[in-house]
């Protein structure tokens, strides 16, 4: 079972296309959705793959010495503080002899790679499950065009209720969320910027709303957690202020409607180089989660699942709890701030910022 759980936010910095493949819908290439709510989601397997890739891309191969090294950057700096010997060569006992571990081409592997294998599961060879699991990313806040104040973040009681439950799993139960959300339908924070005479106009729909002190507190809480006020995050001050004011809690049904019909639909074509016109049959539509959509997922750590103690490398702990803690620490300190998730990487889609709940 999982010993340690951490919640982290996924903030879309550019439109996001976690594709579900073809579907018999209105859009040719729709995004992934939960079966029974139609809420957008990101499948855990895709998320895990992206995070693993982000970890692996911190490596560089020193061709002269035939040895892997870690890049020299801020993230690795953080990681090295927690795991000092992470760059040492990965040695393993084979037939009673201690040998250096190498890849197929004879390049020496380092303990960092052993940790990746232990955390995410090995790519080949001795099979065991990874020590870190992820849940499907769930929607928390969805941006919608507003007649006043450019856009508003919307959410609903059901989403907030789930968020609270997931925080409880991670053993974080903030007082700010110890509320019955169902009474908060059609409310927004005090001194909001998007209200016009007790109405908000989202897309082309008008909602009768009221200001609520409780909603103010929720908005402040979320804004503090998603855009924390630290020196490194200073650029997000504008967003922090915006989220404090421009949040609307809609009814569950209204929220569902918006996440179904207010995603970005982009028409794409392929141009035939010779004729300069659309190639035959090459016209299709794609669905995107708009930028500034905020999702979250849980990272759940268990002890390292290998038999031999020495194969645990830098993640070895005295108790299962300590090991799980180290696994989470490795994820937390080594995860780059910005990842790429979903399709169309080369046209700048899918850049997300990861913010661990603290």
């Amino acid at each position, binding site marked *: 079972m999982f010993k340690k759980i951490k919640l982290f936010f996924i903030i879309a910095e550019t439109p996001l296309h976690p594709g579900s493949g073809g579907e*018999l819908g*209105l*859009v040719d290439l729709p995004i992934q959705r939960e079966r029974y709510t139609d809420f957008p989601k990101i499948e855990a397997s895709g998320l895990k793959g992206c995070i693993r890739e982000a970890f692996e891309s911190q490596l560089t191969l020193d061709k002269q010495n035939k040895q892997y090294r870690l890049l020299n950057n801020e993230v690795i700096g953080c990681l090295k503080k927690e795991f000092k010997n992470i760059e040492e060569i990965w040695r393993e006992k084979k037939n009673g002899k201690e040998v250096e571990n190498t890849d197929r081409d004879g390049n020496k592997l380092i303990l960092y790679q052993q940790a990746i294998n232990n955390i995410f599961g090995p790519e080949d060879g001795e099979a065991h499950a990874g020590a870190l699991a992820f849940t499907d990313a769930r929607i928390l806040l969805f941006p919608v065009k507003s007649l006043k104040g450019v856009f508003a973040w919307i959410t609903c009681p059901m989403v907030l209720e789930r968020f609270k439950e997931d925080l409880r799993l991670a053993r974080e139960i903030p007082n700010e969320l110890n509320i019955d959300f169902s009474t908060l339908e059609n409310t927004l924070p005090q001194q909001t910027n998007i209200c016009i005479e007790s109405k908000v106009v989202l*897309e*082309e729909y*008008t909602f009768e709303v009221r200001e609520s002190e409780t909603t103010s507190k929720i908005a402040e809480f979320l804004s503090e957690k998603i855009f924390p006020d630290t020196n490194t995050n200073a650029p997000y001050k504008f967003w922090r202020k915006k989220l404090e004011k421009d949040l609307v809690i809609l009814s569950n049904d209204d929220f569902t409607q918006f996440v179904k*019909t207010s*995603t970005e639909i982009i*028409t794409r074509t392929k141009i035939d180089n010779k004729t300069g016109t659309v190639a035959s049959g090459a016209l299709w539509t794609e669905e995107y989660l708009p930028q500034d959509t905020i999702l979250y997922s849980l990272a759940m750590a268990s002890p390292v699942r290998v038999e031999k103690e020495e194969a645990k490398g830098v993640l070895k702990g005295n108790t299962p709890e300590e090991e799980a803690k180290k696994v989470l620490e490795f994820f937390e300190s080594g995860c780059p701030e910005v990842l790429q998730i979903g399709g169309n990487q080369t046209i700048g889609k899918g850049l997300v910022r990861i913010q661990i709940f603290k």
Partner: protein
Amino acid sequence: MAEKESFITKLEKGRAEFAYRCVEEAKQTFQGESKKQKEYKSYVKKIPSMVLSNGLGQTLAFVKAKSKKENAYDLIYKQLTEYMKSNHTTRISMQQSEADLVKWVISCNSQDYRYITQEILAFLQWLKRFAEGLIEEEE
């Protein structure tokens, strides 16, 4: 129980049947005019994403503006009106006495407007599928 079941089946089946008839009608109306048939198909494919990105009111206004006597947009507009007046819709339908679809749509309140949007999108999904299947592509 049986009643409930038949209600649920009726929903999608009713829409599907209605959409099928609409495409047949289009083929009949534009018999021998393959250009118009092709237009019908391509408009039917285009309209759903227009609704999603511009809203229903805007889209219907556009379709109405493009309607000319006996062209494909005209037929689609007429068919959408008929569908909204039929008994295949859930939650909301258009009164027989109402004259114009877009006029009725923009007079509705926010909630009804959203129901209509959902309803028309659900119908268009079938229409699009049948149009793709029944109207042949010529080379």
